[in-house]
């Protein structure tokens, strides 16, 4: 009897064990996605786009083995708690990873193991409504016209206080400022050697000629506004030129395109005449507003040059198409012409039509060069330091990137490119 009961229990246990072991594969079969179907995204997360003004959301989820060009992802966004979905983006499943976000290595983990998608909310909800309210997002996976929704994630975007991606730029700025103050303090102690700039040395010659001939000097500050660095540099040069003009007791005329530049130049010229000890020679009509239209300005200045035949003409500042119109008329009138602009597209015209041309940074150096003031001249050393940094960076950058590319050190090359990149 006992033997029979033991046999029954043993049979029952074995039967139960067989059932349990058989049940496991059967449950797995129940959970398995049907053939051709894609499991929905389970680890979708929301993040605020870092280092921006706000309004941009980042959606992240892991790259899956099923991601291939035949599978599409659609991004939906909603500003309401329920419904109201707007399609924000659509892309193949094998694209858009963390590596596609253009941020440097110190500010962003460029992982290829997760999808990262930027959603620019102002494009759908307007600029004013995107920072503050909560937005809902979902990702829909599409394959063979079948769609599989992810769960909904929510979040709000915020304005950030620091562009960590521009840290390289900030460090360079701090370095240049340090060198700037070092150079200024160094200039106070002893003088600096500055190479000769032929175009600026010719200013005395040009003004002397004007004095001998009894003809006026024209100073054309271009068509830039006062916010342009080249125009600011031009006003510094005007100060030095007008000081010499006052010393030689000759005439100067400054035709203007911009009324604000005219107002500043009036003060500059007045100050120069005062410093030269000739305040009585200063007249208000030295600086004259002409026109705020490019070709009207060129036509008017051309007319003045043709009629008055000045002995010397200076073109310093920002010039565009009128550069040749002015310089060619000046050359025809027989004047000594000295030009300087930071517009490299206009430099060839000045080269061919003028006697001397200041190239690029020489325009910025001119004011300091002419004034001979140690504090201002020291800034030229900072320019030289900047050029040295650029030359060294270019030289070693080329070598390191070339070697890295040759040896397939992709992360190393990326680090070098990030260090010198602009963001």
């Amino acid at each position, binding site marked *: 009897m006992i033997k029979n009961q033991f046999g029954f229990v043993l049979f029952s246990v074995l039967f139960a064990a067989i059932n349990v072991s058989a049940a496991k594969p059967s449950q797995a079969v129940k959970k398995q996605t049907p053939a051709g179907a894609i499991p929905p995204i389970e680890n979708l997360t929301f993040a605020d786009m870092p*280092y921006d003004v*706000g309004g941009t959301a980042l959606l992240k989820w892991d790259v899956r083995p099923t991601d291939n060009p035949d599978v599409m992802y659609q991004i939906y966004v909603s500003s309401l708690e329920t419904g109201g979905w707007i399609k924000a983006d659509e892309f193949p499943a094998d694209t858009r990873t963390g590596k596609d976000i253009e941020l440097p290595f110190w500010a962003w983990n460029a992982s290829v193991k997760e999808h990262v998608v930027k959603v620019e909310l102002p494009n759908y909800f307007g600029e004013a409504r995107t920072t503050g309210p909560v937005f809902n997002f979902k990702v829909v996976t599409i394959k063979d016209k079948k769609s599989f929704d992810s769960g909904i994630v929510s979040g709000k975007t915020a*304005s*950030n*206080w*620091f*562009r960590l991606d*521009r840290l390289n*730029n*900030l460090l360079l*700025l701090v370095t240049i400022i340090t060198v*700037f103050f070092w150079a*200024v303090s160094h200039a106070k102690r002893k003088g600096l050697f500055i190479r000769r700039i032929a175009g600026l040395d010719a200013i005395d010659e040009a003004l002397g000629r004007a004095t001998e001939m009894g003809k006026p000097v024209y100073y054309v500050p271009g068509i830039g506004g006062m*916010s342009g*660095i*080249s125009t*600011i*540099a031009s*006003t*510094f040069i005007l*100060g030095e030129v007008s000081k010499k003009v006052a010393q030689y007791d000759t005439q100067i005329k400054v035709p*203007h395109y911009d*009324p*604000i530049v*005219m*107002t500043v130049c009036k*003060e*500059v010229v*007045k*100050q120069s005449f005062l410093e030269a000890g000739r305040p009585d020679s200063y007249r208000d*009509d030295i*600086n*004259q*507003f*002409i026109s705020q239209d490019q*070709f009207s300005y060129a036509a008017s200045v051309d*007319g003045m040059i043709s*009629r008055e035949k000045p002995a010397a003409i200076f073109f310093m500042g920002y010039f565009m*198409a009128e550069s*040749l*119109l002015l310089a*060619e008329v000046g050359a025809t009138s027989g004047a000594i012409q000295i030009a300087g602009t*930071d517009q*490299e597209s206009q430099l*060839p015209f000045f*080269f*061919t*039509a003028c006697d001397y041309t200041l*190239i*690029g*940074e020489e325009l*910025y*150096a001119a004011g300091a060069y002419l004034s001979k003031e140690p*504090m*201002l001249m020291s*800034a*030229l050393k900072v320019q030289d330091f*900047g*050029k040295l940094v*650029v030359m060294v960076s270019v030289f070693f950058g080329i070598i390191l990137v070339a070697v890295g590319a040759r040896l397939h050190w992709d992360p190393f090359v990326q680090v070098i490119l990030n260090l010198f990149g602009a963001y």
Partner: protein
Amino acid sequence: MKLIKKYIPLAIVFTFGVLTLASYYVPHKVSVDYTELVSQWENIVYAFAFLLGLISLFYSHYNKIARKADGWGYSIFVFVGFLAMVIPAYISGGKQGSETGITLLGWSFRYIYNALSSTMFAVLAFYIVSTAYRSFRIKSKQAFVLFVAAFILILGKVPLGQIIWDSVLGWTKCGVSDVIEWIMSVPAVAGKRGIMIGISIGAIVTSFKIIFGIEKQYLGKD
């Protein structure tokens, strides 16, 4: 007096210079709003400055007419031109077009202003020819290099030049378009970038000189 004419303006320049510089590194909405506000102020200052410019222009030309200075007749056209645009603008309410066609301002703009501007721009073509002639006078090694580069570019841009190139230098298997592409993308870009780097550094240093008050000539007399 020195406080008002020197120290306060320098403090304003320093403050706004540093804030504007900082706005490049601070993406916050406060920074964006600040930039927009400064831009609006600039527009307001500009409007007043334009009025000053206009007064200066009229005053200068009125004096020329009154004194019968050389070329005073041209000064009359300043006032004629001004009235020829301002009166139609006033009549048309500042609109160039209406449902029935162009307004009086539109007419003035199209048939006076545009015609004069186009004429002036067209003169550029003649000046380019005379400048090109001047630049082709080889006075130095650099001028020779400029001449050769320009000559190849001119040759490659006209069909006849391409035919000449192919018949004379066709055996080199190097087309004139390839040479032009190389000139434009290698030596020209190299020179341009060199100038651009120098300009950028110069602009940065000039900005520092102004922000930190090293350069203050623009303030005028003390």
